[in-house]
């Protein structure tokens, strides 16, 4: 019975993702926003974003979240417009990165309260060809855990400069989460865990000599 339910849930999720992919292909016209005026406004906002070269998936996801949470039409409209603004801001701050995933992560970081200037610092810590999605996501997670943004940024950029891989940076976030769940202060957990990851990395001298252990692009 349990297995049966899990299979059904899996099938439902697959169908949902297929339908989302179709929706993305067809554009935002299928957004199930009951308020017709708000739906038109959201569709217009998404079309404008697309014309400006911004990714539309985060905007559609935000609208879907509003629908699921039964938010009023005007609130969904405002949330989508606000997300579009953050995507635009993230594009400026993360330039020359333009990948949809990086812009979405940058916008999310701004929403969580990461100061705009820090996005530039994260971008500058790695070569342009390396995606900063994971460092941004982990920074967002740490800031959402009320760790001072400056402290979180210092730890993450230090790891980036020492050649940590995206997965090592992500595991930092997970380890902090586990520590917090077991009662440790988020700030202290970050300090300890960042040191742990740091100890696995090559010395600054060898990084400077061009021998990074990072596996490259995410």
């Amino acid at each position, binding site marked *: 019975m*349990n297995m049966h339910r899990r299979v059904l*849930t899996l099938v439902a999720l697959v169908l949902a993702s297929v339908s989302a992919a179709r929706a993305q292909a067809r554009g935002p016209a299928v957004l199930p926003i009951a308020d017709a005026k708000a739906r038109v406004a959201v569709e217009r906002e998404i079309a404008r974003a697309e014309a400006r070269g911004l990714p539309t998936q985060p905007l559609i*996801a935000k609208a879907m979240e*509003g629908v*699921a949470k039964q938010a009023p039409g005007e609130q969904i409209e405002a949330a989508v417009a606000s997300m579009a603004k953050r995507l635009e801001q993230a594009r400026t701050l993360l330039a020359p990165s333009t990948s949809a995933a990086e812009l979405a992560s940058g916008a999310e970081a701004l929403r969580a309260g990461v100061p705009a200037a820090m996005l530039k610092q994260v971008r500058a810590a790695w070569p342009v060809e390396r995606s900063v999605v994971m460092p941004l996501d982990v920074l967002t997670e740490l800031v959402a855990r009320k760790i001072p943004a400056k402290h979180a940024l210092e730890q993450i950029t230090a790891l980036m400069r020492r050649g940590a891989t995206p997965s090592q940076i992500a595991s930092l976030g*997970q380890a902090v*989460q586990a520590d917090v769940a077991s009662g440790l202060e988020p700030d202290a957990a970050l300090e300890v865990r960042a040191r742990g990851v740091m100890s696995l990395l090559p010395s600054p001298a060898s990084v400077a000599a061009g021998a990074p252990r990072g596996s490259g692009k995410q």
Partner: protein
Amino acid sequence: MLPAAQENSDGVIAGASRALLLACVVAFRAAAQEAGDVRLETGYARVDQKGFRPADAALVAVFWRKPTDRFTLLTSGNLTYARDSLAAAQGVAAFVFPWASREHLRTDVGAAGATFSLHSAGRGGNGNGFLRQHYVADLWGAWGGTAFGLSSRSGNRSQSYAVDIGAWTRWRAIFASASLSRQNSDDFQLLYASGGLSTSGAPTYEFEDWQVVASARRGPHELTGSWTRRHSVAGTDFRAEAVAVAGTLQLSDRLAFLASAGRQLADPVRGLPQADIITASLRLSLGPKPLPVMERATIAEAFLQSEPGGGVELIVRVAAVDSIAVQVAGDFSEWKPVFLEREGDYWVARVALPPGKYHVGVRANLGPWRAPRNLARVRDDFGGESGLIVVP
């Protein structure tokens, strides 16, 4: 105290009480406009005080609960009226602050004002305030608090304070608590109205109360019983025991029947005399469909288990009674709600997540979406929150 000063202080207390009542009325009007969680209650009470004829009274009450991102505002106003013997009106405003950075901590702070005319304990008003700090774990919790009250009764001003500590635990649908409180007061009129006598020359009297409360909840239905043992510590020689039971039967989504019977011991901080009270009332809930009462910390937990082929399995677990419906949703389901399944004492959902970043929300009985308590929380642009997960 000089008569003029006394009248002045009576006026201040009565004025403060009226101001608080007025604030409650304004708040209820605002609540009705915002369609918040508003509850109206009306019913009957039989009030029996030592040395007086039992009084039949009408009860009318309004409650409003307004949750926000940072706190929950609880307000209520109630009126008890019996022709020629009893009339009391009370307004309460309280704030509940969960600590954003300390998941297990919660602070309650509030104030109340009342005006009354009681054949047993005079006419006047009362103003009081309280502060209580809670530690809330999954299946147990503890609190410590203090309260202070000023009463004006037939021209006599009095003040009272109380401190209390307590702990509670929950096992399945049973909730039990034990507490110890001390109450100090110079409201002797209240003591006499409650059957006590003062020790000659004592400026104040003090009670110590031990209380045990047990309640059983099944969905929105609840049955509670309490036992209190009181003895005097100073200023009087007074002992009393009180047993009370109260029940809530939810008749439909919006209508509930409430009944209670038992003894209310004198409460100097709130200016209430001892009485045996029986009540029966109906409660109508307006606004969103009412939720069963659940401590925030028991709403949901999320665990991540690494999968051999990469990604993780997200396990969302909710400790709640089996009579409610619990759903999880997030980016991974395009925000389409997925029902959790019952596993032992928990509601559980398992979702495979490939590497990436996800937002997760959990809700009970179509209520507000909440972040699982152990995840990083971000605001969601819709007045709520989501949990944030980064999968390596």
